[in-house]
Structure formats: structure tokens, C-alpha cells
């Protein structure tokens, strides 16, 4: 009997010691260097895209764009934007963003979703009602590019103060559609957009496969 008691005593002591190993984490406060930007020269030498969102995971765009280098190609597509459009970086859901005027910008992104849902979403942003039925792609404006046919949706708010012109194209990988769509979106003040439509369409028409 005495033997068994000892066994239980020792086992109990061992368990208590093991349970005591845990410790409660506490709130901490510390400072770190700001996330660094990548060296464009090194990436250029390696022939790698400069501004893919996952290049700097967890970081935010700088916002002022002064120390950022505008990309000329993204995910297999090369493009050329007018020099006056100021590159402002990437976002969690934006591959690139260019500020044209304080109230107008051009963004490049990839996302999924059906055409009608997309159009209704943009209409909602402009305060317009949803379209009835499905949007017929044939009814939309087209721009031929070296990487495929671009569908154009042009929408304006009822008072004309805000306008969006969006170019859409299926995203491809190894010649196969991935289910995602490229979006090139000119969005902002109605008159600013009007002034930049020609440059925007010219940029879209000049899309080409990345080297």
C-alpha cells in the first residue's frame, strides 16, 4: 500500500510541475524600422516585376509615391501610362494605383465575379440602380489589344460629377483563363475623366505581353 501511495505522490508532483510550465503572455510595446522598399535595380537585373502586391507582404503603400517606381509590367502584361499620372503604390487588392488629379485615379486590379455583378456594383457606387437582367458583353465597347480583347464599361452618375471607365479582360495563365479578371479603372471627377479618356484608351490599346 505504501508503495502505491508513493507512486501517486510522485505522479501528482510531476503533473503539477508540468502544468506549472505554462505562462500568460502580456501586452508588449516596441518600435521597429519602417518596412523597406525593394531595390528596383536588383529586381530589374533579375527580370522580376517590381510592384506585385505580394512583393512586400504586410506593408502598406507609402501614399506619397515619391520614392516608388511605377511598374511597366504586371503579371505577364506590359503597359505604358502617361508620365503625368503619378504612381502611388499598391494596395491589398490593387496591383497598382496612379493619381491623375486629386479627384481622379487609375487603378489596376484582379478579381473574380460575373460581368453583371461587376456592372451593378459600379452602378451602385455611382448611385445608379441595378440593370435588369444580364449585361450583354456584345453591347459593350471593345478595344483590341495584343493580349486579348478588352471590354469597356463607361458609367457616369446622374449629375455627371463622377464617371468611371473600366477596361476588363480575362486573366490568363499559360494560355488558360484563371477565372480572375483584369480591371483597369479610370475613376473620378467627370470632367477629369473626360480629359483623360483618350490617354486611358491609348494605354489599353498598347497592352502587350511582358518580355
Amino acid at each position: 500500500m505504501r508503495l502505491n501511495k508513493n507512486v501517486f505522490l510522485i505522479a501528482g508532483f510531476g503533473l503539477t510541475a508540468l502544468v506549472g510550465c505554462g505562462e500568460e503572455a502580456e501586452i508588449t510595446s516596441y518600435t521597429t524600422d519602417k518596412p523597406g522598399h525593394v531595390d528596383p535595380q536588383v529586381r530589374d537585373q533579375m527580370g522580376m516585376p517590381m510592384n506585385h502586391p505580394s512583393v512586400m507582404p504586410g506593408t502598406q503603400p507609402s501614399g506619397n509615391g515619391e520614392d516608388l517606381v511605377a511598374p511597366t509590367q504586371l503579371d505577364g502584361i506590359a503597359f505604358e501610362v502617361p508620365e503625368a499620372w503619378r504612381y502611388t503604390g499598391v494596395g491589398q487588392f490593387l496591383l497598382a494605383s496612379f493619381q491623375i488629379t486629386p479627384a481622379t485615379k487609375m487603378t489596376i486590379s484582379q478579381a473574380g465575379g460575373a460581368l453583371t455583378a461587376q456592372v451593378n456594383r459600379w452602378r451602385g457606387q455611382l448611385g445608379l440602380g441595378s440593370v435588369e437582367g444580364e449585361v450583354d458583353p456584345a453591347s459593350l465597347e471593345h478595344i483590341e489589344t495584343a493580349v486579348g480583347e478588352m471590354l469597356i464599361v463607361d458609367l457616369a452618375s446622374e449629375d455627371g460629377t463622377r464617371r468611371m471607365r473600366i477596361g476588363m479582360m480575362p486573366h490568363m495563365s499559360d494560355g488558360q483563363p484563371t477565372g480572375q479578371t483584369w480591371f483597369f479603372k479610370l475613376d473620378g471627377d467627370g470632367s477629369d475623366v473626360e480629359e483623360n479618356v483618350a490617354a486611358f484608351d491609348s494605354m489599353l490599346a498598347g497592352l502587350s505581353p511582358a518580355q
Partner: protein
Amino acid sequence: MNDIAMIEEKTPNIPKLILAATGSLKIAVVLLSLGLFLVFVGTLAQTRLGTWEVIDTYFRGVYVMVPVRLITELFQGKENEALRGPYLFFPGGFTILGLLSLNLLSAMCQKIARDCKSSARAVLLRRHVGIYILHVGLIVMFAGEFVTGLYAEEGTMTIPVGGWADHVEDHRATELVFLDTSDPEQDRHIVIPESLLMRHAATNGDGEIISHSDLPFDVRVEDYMTNAEFLVRERVAAFRGAGSRIGANRIPRWPGTEPRQNIPAITVTLIDKENGQPIGTWLCAAAPEQLKLNPELSIALERVESVLGPDMPFHILSLPLAGQQEVKEGMPTMQLRLARRYMGYRVYLDKVEHDVYDGTGLPRNFSSDVRVADQTAGVEHKSHIWMNHPLRYDNETFYQHQMDAGVGLTGLMVVNNPGAWLPYISCGIVTLGMLVQFSVSLFGYGRRSMR
């Protein structure tokens, strides 16, 4: 028999009794059997739980409640619903290993004590020295598992070509951080660890809040989900940010057999420290890039962005203070992110290589050329990391883990394990013990043959 001898016989020798009880071979057999069963149920549990969850609860726990259905479903077929009781109370891996170590130590002490008491002490000690060494080797091996389980840290470091990183991310834990980027030189992080978030989430019915002098707000954790699925919902006025259009439902963590990533999520209410009034409730997710793969969520997120601004991604929710509706550069932000460990030095990535066998897409080699720049130590160290050839620096080991050569990214697995060398030391000791024991037996046999 005189009185003293009788008293000695009646008085129990406590250390001897303890050694006899704990060093019993029967106990060793029972513990090894328990260990075998634990490995069995732990393996089964990986069809229901994540690999690391199983390691932490089954193999590195003090005790574990094993669902009996885990075993019965082997015969009755697997059901999709979550496992519920009855449960089998079972000692965890650490308990079994701890008791096994004690058993081994006691057995060794008993043997040494017995040999020492013998009249042929010198002969017996010499004859058994190899066995003593073997026991020490095994105890060192067990100690290695304890040290690894309790103190090892690992995480991934993602670096873009031409860029650098100074921290690793632990994919098994999250943290809620308030990030102040207003200083042009440095960012300030105020971090609430996951364990604290989970503890407060469990008691949120009591209205308990997290309050700390460094926090810009008091925080009430409404809910914490170790894995969540997201859905678009009608606008919920109570929520600010993405949570106003996107809801999160708690789901079980993906099991180890599923190659899917858990997406932890949290809903928190921030409370003004001065007047005690709630500022708003936010929903944050720790892996928003995964959400983009869902077209509906992607659209909803963009809709939220269109309302709140383009630089308002899902997990980096800037905090408009009371009365301020616009988000401005440098405003403190709140994120639920993977738990970070900062290294105190930078690792630069100069080059990545992804080679495949000619004519196939089969990978042949992944490698990264990195530079460690440690300003504190005045060290700039170059290294070529590739499969099974890690970089070792400052008690950390950097293994080649992932790569996206197209985008120009490398993922390094960074491990800090103070017990990393113990298995090697243990193997060395065991080998030495076996050699010694073999030599003693061989020479003993030789001597006897000579006679």
C-alpha cells in the same frame, strides 16, 4: 535480532521505496503502451484537427480528452459532424515522457545502488558502465523533446528579391496590433497576444475589457475565431469598416489532412479611454489575401473600399477617431496579423533560383542568395541557402521553405531551437554506451576464454 536491527527493518527506507516504485520495469512497459496508444489516437485526430493542434494537445500536453468516437468511427465510418463526448481522459505526451524519464532515472539509480552495495562492486560497476551510459543517452533524448516543445520557436520569413525582412511570422498564432506609423523613422507596435485575446473572448459576457497604458483605446473582444468563413451580408450599422458588409462565421480549424489555410478573425469594440464610450466595432481577418479568391467577397471588399477609401484593406483598418470621418496618412491602424518575432537584424535577398529538370516541370533546386546585415554586431554575412543547406546565425536556422521565382519572393523557415543539438548528443552518448558495453562484454569473454 537486536532492537536496533528490528527498528531498521520496520522503518521504511523512503528513497529506496521511491526508487523501487518509480523504477519498475512494469511501469516502463505500461508507459510505453500508453505512448503507443497516444501516437495511435494522435494520428487519428489529425483527420479532425490541424497537425500543430494535435502536437500541442496530444503530444505536448499534460493530459488530453480523447473523443471515444475518434476510435469507434474507425469501425462505424467517419461522420462529418464535429466530434463530441464521451471523452477518454488520457495522459498527454509530456506526462508520459516525464514519467518515463523518471522511470529510467530511478531504474539507473537503483542499479547503481545495487552494484555499489555488492561485495564485487568494482567488477559490477565496470560490467554495467555501458548500460549506465545508455540510460543517460535516453534521458538526454527525452530532455531534448521537452526543451524543443517548451522553448523552440519557428516561423516563416518572406523576402522579395532586392528587399529585406527583419521579422518572422508564426503561422500558428495571431496578435492584434495597434500600429502607429506617424514617426518618419520608426513604427510603434502595441501588441495584444492571441492567448489574451482568446481569454477575453471567452469571458466577453462579463464585459471584461483589455486596458493598458500603452494602448490608445480600451479593447473589448467580442469574439475570436481561430478559423472563420466569410460571407457577404446586408449592411450592419453596428460595425465599422469591412465588417459592415462582411460577416464571419466560426468554423473548426482545417484538419492536418486538408491543405487549406486557417483564417483567424476577431471582432473587437474599441472604447474611448477618457469617457468610456464605445467608438465602434470592427471585424478583422488575419489572412485577407485568401478572401480575394472568393469572387463574392472580393466584390464586397471592393465595395467597402469604395466607401471607405482605396487604402482601406480588410485587415489594416485605419481608425477614424471619434468625430473624424476621414482616414489620413499616419493615423494609427489596427490589424489582426500572424504573430511576429523581430530579429534585431535584416536579411536581404539578392537572388533566387528555381531550377527544374530539363524537359520537365519537376523542381530540381530552390536556392536563395541572402545577406545578413547585423548593425549591432557589425556583421555582414553572405550565404547561399538551398535544400538541406540552411544558414545558421545568432541561434537561428534559416531553411529554404517556399519560393515564387516568377514574382521574385523567397520564403525561409526560421527555427530557433535551444534543444536542437540534444538529439545528436543523445545519439552520441547512446552509441558510446553501446560500444562500451560491447567492449566490456567482448574483453570479459576474451579473458574467460584465455583461462
